[in-house]
């Protein structure tokens, strides 16, 4: 009976929708009109989540929830036009004449041209300059399944994206084989200013407070500057919508592996001329466990706080953001080996050398990080001129790292990095059919070592000044877009450090470069479209790549300027080579990326193929084992060579029924060192996954319910360097010279199969997810995790996360 009634109601509502504009109830007062409804796919009639819905002229907008539903309240006019734009759909608009509560369904047609956003203030300019680059977006609903994840882990479910890590807490996004300084993390419009070197420093970004994450898979250097060589990860926080009734959300969660718990609070409100948000979160996770043993010292603790304020007045729009992240991240105790003998033992041991019972305690090795982020943004819009946006940002990143050593209470690394950014953009009004963005930027970083580490600084003190200017123009004709851009950067560096005997070394150097991008999007037919982009980008070697010296973690490392070969061809480390005397060049990358999308009936195929050539690619590799007073020690050096990356991402989406759909994804990458004709180290292996989603809509007493099953297979990295175990180097079985082929201390781990399950649900104001990662409790090691030398990955993890909404923005009546 109930079922029949709801169907009737649905039919009735659809009928009303067809009769749009609907006659509304008379209203006397202003600003309490609202629009609400559901966004549906015109063909499948399925709801479309995470599309932008904006009220034209009111500067108010929202994003649809997992049921495609939206509500925008506090509107001042009775007749409203909403513009809807979604990922992979044509834009649509719809006009309604409503007062309160009427449902208005909007149908979107699937479209090959992705992400041509309309009318979303503050978002369009971010897309500008990247329209022809293959990209992916993730919304809050996807991110909230596990709010305690790292940024890298959250986005790694996407095709072509993976992560490299140092255990469960320190994870860096990898896009098409590139990571670290080659993937720009843009936090709220600013380059995240952190100690971005090595694989043991992850961006301190709290995904629980992110409202949207965009992953650009092409070289986006022109728009975002150096370091976007391999792509960019753009994290956006609350959009600070105006005329948004008070809304709050309280979240809490628990996970079985690591016995972790988290809680979060978000609240916000938008008035006619101003709006605000405040959020905070707390996470604590203890030692993770593999199916067989505890990963001793693998917990984390994290506190975050964020706030934003916006003033809006006619042509002016001003926003201020502040955020704070405080982390204490444990690294696996057994990853520390102070000698070749200990390393040999740690590598060859089936289980980690040190296993203690479960604990929440975090001991050495660990990292304490505090990141402050402050930003002010003012924009001015004028019909004749266009839009001018000025951004100023300041970030302070304090980092202390503790190693297992005699003086373990002293940090072995204690750095304070401050980053200052100024950006001025002009999005000019269309001129001769050209849409464009012109910008100038100034970027300044100051890195200082705090005294009291009892060890010679691993990274020197330095100052970097960078001046940049860019221009990006696009022209649309019919359904095709051409986009082109150019950028100039000039960077000045001043470095001061200490040698081990405490004598001072200094270096001053600068780099100048021009970066370009050309892209083209063409709709081949109703069913298929093609996009192509050639982008160049560059990157200066980072301080660790140039200057690192000595032991940290299990590695003894030498930066490019800290070693040289003497006349006998022997490696020497007794002086710092001035950069002017060295042959070091900045990395320059050329990325050619093509995407073909084809739809037919219930199927959608997307093939992204790319080739990426990087001159002077810098990488870290095992070099030798040298004898020291501690015994034989494994030595890693930074090296430079020309590298080529070729790969593709393929995805096939099919709607099996009205409510069940599946997506097959395959990522393939082949890479090589062109200079020496040998493999590169630490490159992502081939992976394939299938995501089967059963979107039930209303189910039982839940207002929404969605099941996802995701089997995933990751192959062994067949293209890994040969294995030379440390004991062979210690006993002289294998002799390494400068011309020797690249090697690794351990062979790439076997392929592995994982099965993940997720159930997302909504019960009026309560929403949440119950998910199981590694359901089969598989024992495996991940090639991109440096801990693979020492331990297995965590086993099964069951997570429950709940969120309760207070105030407006709830669905239903």
């Amino acid at each position, binding site marked *: 009976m109930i079922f029949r009634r709801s169907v009737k109601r649905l039919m009735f509502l659809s009928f009303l929708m067809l009769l749009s504009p609907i006659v509304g109830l008379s209203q006397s007062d202003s600003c309490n009109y609202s629009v609400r409804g559901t966004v549906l796919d015109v063909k499948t009639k399925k709801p479309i989540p995470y599309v932008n819905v904006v009220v034209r002229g009111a500067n108010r907008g929202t994003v649809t929830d997992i049921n495609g539903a939206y509500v925008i309240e506090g509107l001042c006019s009775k007749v409203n036009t909403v513009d809807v734009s979604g990922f992979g759909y044509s834009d649509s608009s719809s006009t309604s004449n409503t007062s309160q509560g009427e449902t208005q369904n909007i149908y979107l047609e699937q479209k090959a041209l992705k992400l041509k956003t309309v009318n979303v203030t503050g978002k369009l300019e971010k897309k500008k300059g990247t329209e022809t680059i293959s990209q992916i977006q993730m919304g809050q609903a996807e991110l909230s399944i596990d709010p305690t994840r790292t940024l890298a882990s959250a986005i790694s479910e996407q095709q072509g994206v993976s992560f490299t890590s140092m255990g469960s807490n320190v994870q860096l996004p990898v896009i098409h084989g590139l990571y670290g300084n080659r993937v720009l993390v843009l936090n709220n419009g600013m380059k995240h200013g952190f100690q971005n070197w090595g694989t043991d420093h992850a961006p301190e970004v709290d995904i629980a407070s992110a409202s949207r994450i965009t992953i650009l898979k092409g070289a986006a250097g022109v728009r975002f500057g150096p370091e976007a060589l391999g792509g960019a990860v753009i994290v956006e926080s609350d959009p600070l919508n105006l005329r948004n009734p008070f809304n709050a959300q309280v979240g809490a969660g628990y996970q079985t592996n690591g016995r972790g718990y988290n809680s979060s609070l978000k609240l916000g409100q938008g008035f006619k001329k101003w709006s605000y948000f405040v959020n905070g979160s707390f996470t604590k996770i203890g030692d993770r466990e593999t199916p067989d043993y505890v990963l001793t010292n693998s917990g984390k603790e994290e506190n975050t706080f964020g706030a934003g304020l916006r003033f809006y007045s006619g042509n002016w729009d001003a926003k201020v953001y502040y955020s704070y992240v405080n982390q204490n991240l444990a690294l696996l105790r057994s990853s520390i080996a102070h000698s070749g003998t200990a390393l040999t033992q740690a590598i060859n041991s089936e289980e980690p050398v040190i296993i203690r019972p479960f604990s929440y305690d975090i001991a050495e090795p660990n990292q304490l990080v505090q990141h402050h982020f402050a930003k002010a943004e003012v924009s001015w819009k004028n019909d004749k001129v266009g839009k001018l946006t000025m951004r100023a*940002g300041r970030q302070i990143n304090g980092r202390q790292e503790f190693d297992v050593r005699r003086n373990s209470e002293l940090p072995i690394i204690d750095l304070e990095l401050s980053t*200052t950014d100024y950006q001025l953009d002009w999005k000019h009004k269309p001129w001769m059919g050209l849409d464009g963005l012109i910008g100038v930027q100034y970027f300044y970083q100051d890195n200082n070592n705090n005294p009291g580490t009892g060890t010679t600084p691993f990274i020197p003190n330095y100052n970097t000044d960078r001046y940049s200017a860019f221009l990006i123009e696009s022209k649309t004709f019919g359904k095709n877009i051409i986009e082109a851009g150019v950028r100039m950067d000039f960077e000045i560096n001043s470095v001061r450090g200490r040698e081990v005997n*405490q004598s001072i070394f200094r270096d001053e150097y600068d780099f100048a470069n021009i970066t370009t991008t050309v892209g083209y999007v063409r709709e081949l037919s109703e069913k298929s479209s093609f996009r192509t982009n050639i982008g160049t980008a560059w990157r200066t070697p980072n301080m660790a790549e140039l200057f690192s010296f000595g032991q940290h973690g299990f590695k003894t490392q030498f930066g490019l300027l800290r070693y040289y070969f003497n006349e006998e061809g022997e490696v020497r480390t007794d002086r710092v080579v001035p950069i002017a005397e060295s042959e070091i060049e900045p990395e320059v990358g050329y990325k050619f990326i093509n995407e073909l999308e084809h739809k037919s009936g219930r199927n959608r195929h997307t093939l992204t193929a790319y080739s990426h050539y990087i001159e002077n690619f810098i990488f870290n590799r095992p070099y030798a084992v040298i004898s020291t007073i*501690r015994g034989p020690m494994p030595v890693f050096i930074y090296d430079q060579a020309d590298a080529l990356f070729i790969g593709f991402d393929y995805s096939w989406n099919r709607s099996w029924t009205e409510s069940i759909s599946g997506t097959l994804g395959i990522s393939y990458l082949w890479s090589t060192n062109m200079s020496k004709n040998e493999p590169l180290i630490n490159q992502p292996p081939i992976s394939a996954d299938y995501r089967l989603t059963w979107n039930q809509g209303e189910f039982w007493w839940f207002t929404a319910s969605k099941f996802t099953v995701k089997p995933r297979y990751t192959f062994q990295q067949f293209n890994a360097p040969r294995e030379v175990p440390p004991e062979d180097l210690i006993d002289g079985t294998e002799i390494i010279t400068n011309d020797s082929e690249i090697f690794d201390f351990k062979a790439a781990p076997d392929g592995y199969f994982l099965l993940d399950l997720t159930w997302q649900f909504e019960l009026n104001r309560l929403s949440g997810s119950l998910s199981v990662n590694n359901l089969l409790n598989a024992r495996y090691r991940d090639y991109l995790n440096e801990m693979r030398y020492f331990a297995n990955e965590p086993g099964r993890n069951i997570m429950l996360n709940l969120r309760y909404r207070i105030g407006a923005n709830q669905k239903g009546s």
Partner: protein
Amino acid sequence: MNTFFKLRNYALIALMASSVVLTSCGDDDDDDVPEPVNEVEVITDVKLIFTNSNDASDVVEARAQDPDGQGVQELAILDTINLDTSKTYILTYEIFNNLETPGEDIGAEILAEDDEHQIFFSFTDGAFSSPTGNGNFDNAADPINYNDLDDNNIEVGLNTTWTTPSTMTANGSFRARLQHQPGVKTATSTVNTGDTDFDLEFVINIQ
């Protein structure tokens, strides 16, 4: 009304300007150099000192040196241990970081943290009449004449006793390894527990 809007625009410009000022204070290129540090981790020189227990002037020293500490230069074993037959020696150490001037005495630091450290030994089988055997690398319970105990009554090894037999040994091996075992040093911990601070193998002649 117009004036009001203008004023507001000025206010926004002021806000914009103040944000610039706020974020740029005190940021001129500095020229700070990291402060000099007292290297507490690096060991460059280890000296083994065998003192005849009956004659304090009868001293045999053997040195090992890694002149560049963490650098790639190879370790050099500078001396051979030449002991007399049928004598009892007390073995002590001098452990220094000589990259600093004056050199840093790491031995004192190890003594202060003796509950986290233990020295293990391995030598040519039967080279000594006491301890017998080949040392406690292969089996931590094998005999070594430790003369020092930490607060937990576990052996340390900064002071050990060695008695040579009447038989001679030529070109034998004597290896000493200092293990750093924070939180994991127990009565049963072994040469493979924890991390190595030094691991030195000398040639030994007993004649």
